[in-house]
């Protein structure tokens, strides 16, 4: 069976990628941020994963409001960076973990999930930035990917319970996969942050820390 070697949570804000594009890695504003990722990057090198499962949300780049999947799963051979308005970024395309991805889709449906299954699709910064933070800017990524999109843009959005349940199916899929791949899971997205309105940029650090402590110490959801 394949093996889960770890799970990592990270931000994926696009300005991180833009900073790398502009060569600002070691600038005064950005250096403390990127230095904070060095330990994780090193861990990743030593852990030698074969597959990265990247769970993220699209930001109105790949999906529009005309068709909004609650959960979408990629089974593509290749995922190119999508044009987010500035033109596609000059980073390597991502190779899909095709067979394993289909296996996950099979498991999901077997367990009564109804995902959108994507054979041809591009990925935005939600997947790109976490990959860059942990694998740098290689000409070829050292892992194949399984992208999972979670709707966060248009109501109704999936309940936390449903996301939890999908995670248990993901574990089942990995543990029942006959290959011996090493799988790392990247859970990506923001903690508190606000883009719209007069509180744009507002961050609630106390709530963020409480949430992180909660999911680390007591992740099992409380039964209703």
């Amino acid at each position, binding site marked *: 069976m394949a093996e889960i070697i770890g799970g990592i949570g990270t931000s994926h804000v696009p*300005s991180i990628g833009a900073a790398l594009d502009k060569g600002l890695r070691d600038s*005064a*504003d950005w250096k403390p941020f990127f230095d904070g990722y060095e330990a994780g990057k090193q861990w990743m090198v030593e852990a030698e994963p074969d597959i990265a499962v990247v769970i993220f949300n699209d*930001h*109105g*780049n790949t999906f*529009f*409001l*005309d068709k909004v999947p609650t959960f979408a799963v990629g089974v593509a051979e290749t995922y190119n960076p*999508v*044009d*987010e*308005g*500035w*033109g596609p970024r000059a980073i390597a395309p991502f190779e899909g973990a095709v067979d394993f991805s289909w296996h996950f889709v099979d498991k999901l449906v077997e367990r009564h999930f109804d995902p959108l299954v994507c054979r041809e699709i591009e990925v935005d910064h939600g997947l790109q930035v976490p990959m860059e933070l942990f694998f740098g800017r290689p000409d070829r990524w050292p892992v194949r990917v399984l992208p999972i999109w979670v709707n966060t*843009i*248009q*109501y*109704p959005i999936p309940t936390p319970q449903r996301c939890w349940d999908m995670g248990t199916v993901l574990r089942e899929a990995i543990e029942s996969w006959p290959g011996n791949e090493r799988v790392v899971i990247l859970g990506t997205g923001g903690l508190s942050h*606000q*883009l*719209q*309105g*007069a*509180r*744009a*940029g*507002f*961050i609630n650090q106390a709530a963020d820390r409480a949430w992180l402590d909660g999911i680390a110490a007591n992740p099992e959801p409380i039964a209703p």
Partner: protein
Amino acid sequence: MPEQHFIPDTPLFDRAGSIRGYKINKMAMALGQPQNREAFKADEEAYLDRFGLAPEEKAAVMSRDWHEMVRLGGNLFFILKIAAVDPTPITQIGAAQASMSHDDFLYERLGKKRNG
């Protein structure tokens, strides 16, 4: 849908907003394609007319009134593509919505360190 719709100073992208803002967001989404960016730059009003925007929506876009675009149902994820064409930094949009100077926004909201 959340039952509590009111959060101070926070225009929620709720169902009414999503329905109301459909055209403005569709127009902005299309700017993900280079030929549409060219059309937008060449004749902004004609480009907006292609998507059937109402006069108040057109006015909000053409004056880059981000607050008003959001009030009309614009979602930052989409309307940022307008900013990409200009280009306007996202921090500038944040500052405009917060009614702060760009510098104050960077320091007070984003934790930029003064003098360093």
